[in-house]
């Protein structure tokens, strides 16, 4: 840690002045954001070089996501951690090595500067853990009521090795579906943390970066067909999109699904289906059956994959997802229609 530098920022809350393009904005950026990013300084534009880019056949991976969670801080993480992990994971599940991130902040007037500091610190720590650099950024301030505290948009650039070609349409019947850990923790955490349903529990978000995990899996199981992080819409949506892209059926086994007791409890109370709950550190990947063991072993060797299990496999037939229920029946797991609403019927 450096010795604390004298802060020019004397406000405790963000005012519109901090978005005006003048000295107050500079102070906010310099003091809150620039100091924690690597390399220090949030340049308007980054100039980047990595030798992997020049390898013949290498391609660039480019992705973006906006993060809009309420509350901004929750058990297991905050919006900054989500914003780093989410984009790192999007790069990773595409088979890319994550290299660089941009981070754009939309801040509501009145937001506590201490909160911004915490979020920036989380981002710096998470970026370092994921081995990615936050190289460029932006800050905007909007009036009170024009945003919900803080929105963060990250974009990621990575490099895809010349021989790598992962895509959902490569999935073939017989491929094994593997998840790296428990399902629904993030969605259940946010439902409880929001407070309007007055539920409390000890669940924490699964939010984590999966870049290193994916690198290990790809080394151990190079034939891995495709991976997807099961974020919004949950595992059900990820699987449905993959089935549709590959035009294969997918069969999963209810008994095999890793679910925490508390997540099950929350779903029972609210009449929700954990298959549709969001995850922020959970991916599903498809591996040819002869490499499934290697992929599982590689995942279990890392903390992010300690709970890895095979949950099903691809089958020939209509592009739909079907689940064998623990009870011995079978049902279709369709894509969600709108958002999942708490039920009482």
């Amino acid at each position, binding site marked *: 840690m450096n010795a604390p530098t004298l802060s020019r920022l004397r406000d405790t809350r963000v005012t519109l002045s901090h978005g005006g393009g003048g000295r107050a904005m500079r102070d906010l950026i310099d003091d809150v954001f620039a100091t924690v990013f690597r390399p220090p300084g949030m340049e308007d534009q980054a100039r980047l070089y990595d030798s992997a880019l020049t390898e013949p056949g290498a391609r660039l991976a480019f992705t973006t996501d906006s993060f809009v969670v309420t509350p901004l801080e929750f058990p297991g993480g905050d919006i900054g951690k989500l914003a780093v992990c989410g984009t790192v994971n999007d790069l990773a599940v595409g088979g890319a090595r994550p290299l660089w991130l941009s981070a754009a902040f939309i801040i509501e007037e009145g937001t506590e500067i201490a909160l911004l500091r915490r979020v920036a610190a989380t981002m710096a720590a998470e970026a370092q853990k994921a081995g990615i650099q936050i190289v460029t950024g932006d800050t905007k301030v909007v009036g009170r009521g024009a945003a919900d505290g803080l929105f963060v948009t990250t974009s990621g650039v990575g490099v895809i090795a010349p021989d790598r070609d992962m895509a959902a349409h490569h999935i073939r019947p017989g491929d094994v579906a593997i998840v790296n850990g428990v399902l629904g923790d993030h969605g259940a955490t946010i439902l409880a943390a929001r407070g309007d349903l007055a539920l409390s529990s000890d669940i924490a978000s699964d939010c984590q970066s999966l870049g290193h995990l994916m690198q290990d899996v790809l080394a151990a199981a190079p034939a891995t067909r495709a991976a997807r992080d099961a974020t919004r819409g949950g595992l059900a949506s990820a699987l449905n999109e993959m089935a549709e892209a590959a035009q294969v059926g997918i069969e999963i086994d209810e008994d095999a699904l890793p679910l925490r007791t508390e997540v099950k409890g929350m779903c029972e109370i609210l009449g929700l289906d954990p298959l549709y709950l969001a995850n922020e550190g959970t991916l599903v990947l498809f591996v040819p059956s002869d490499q499934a063991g290697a992929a599982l072993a590689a995942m279990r060797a890392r903390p992010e994959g300690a709970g890895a299990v095979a949950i099903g496999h691809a089958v020939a037939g209509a592009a739909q997802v079907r689940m064998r229920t623990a009870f011995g029946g079978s*049902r279709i797991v369709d894509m969600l229609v709108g958002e999942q609403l708490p039920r009482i019927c």
Partner: protein
Amino acid sequence: MKFASEFRNPKAAQAVLARISEVADAIGATAENPVSIMEICGGHTHAIFRYGLDKLVHEGVEFIHGPGCPVCVLPMARVDECVEIAEREGVIFTTFGDAMRVPGTLKSLMQAKAGGADIRMVYSPLDALELARRNPEREVVFFGLGFETTTPSTALSIQQAAREGLKNFSVFCNHITVPEPIRALLQDPHMMLDGFIGPGHVSMVIGTHPYDFIAQEYSRPIVVAGFEPLDLLQSVLMVLEQIRDGRAQVENQYARVVPAQGNPVSLAAIADVYERRPSFEWRGLGEIDASGLRIRAKYAAFDAEEKFSVGYAAGPRHVPEPEGCSCGAVMTGRIKPTACAQFGRGCTPDTPLGALMVSSEGACAAYWQYRGARGAEAAE
């Protein structure tokens, strides 16, 4: 989960299923000439599809999905009235999540919210009460929806509001009762039901005697059932055994939760706060005598119909069901959802035409989601 997972044991299920097959065979039930059992409650419909029970049981047993989803049977006009109240200046309209996407003639509550109405999903009427305490300058209206299971919660909330002297809390009452539509169904000349699975949670409030007429007047077996898959299978078995034995009784499979006399506190609260409307409209079924509740005059201050002069307080109104909708036929067991010409075409969960496609408890929605999504397989 205690008192739940024990009743999900697949090993025990095998035994019950085997016994069901035995009894079904003994009766002579076949796919062509099945025994038709109506599960009255939408919660049962949901569980049947979630656990795939309809495909597990003997082919001679057919589930007919009853009218027991309060969201599905809510007439469009009532949704319009919700929207009308919710869009009033100063109103915070609170509702269970289930009702958010039900279409009115112009829009759903979800769409009204997008249009600017302050509509909030709550888990409990208690949460609406708390909102009223915290927002004394706003009018907080709770969308009171549901069968006898839910009615005590709004009755108790209104009593509590009265005790606290809250001036800004009211309930838009759409509570309905189970026995009356069952009687209506039984009076239908097309009716071909052989027995009933009785609603477990309604019964924990009202007890089992309100179903006596089913056995005594209409000679149909009814078994009040729990919501776990073993509960349902055991109840099916109990219905089949009554049929085999030529009995027609009210039995209680769910005795761990349902007392024969119901819950006296709940019944007293209902009696104190509500009275029967002469008649109430059901989507797909039409007007049914004495099937709906309204808030008594002594609690008029908490009655949103009175406060905002909408609904029955505003005089008669009728909104016809959309054309081509076969909900009535499905709900009386005459056709399966997939036999409706609209199923998967004009009518899907994201653009529901009829009531039964709206809630995940609705028979058509359950068919779509758990059995035959995306039209093709649906019409198999």
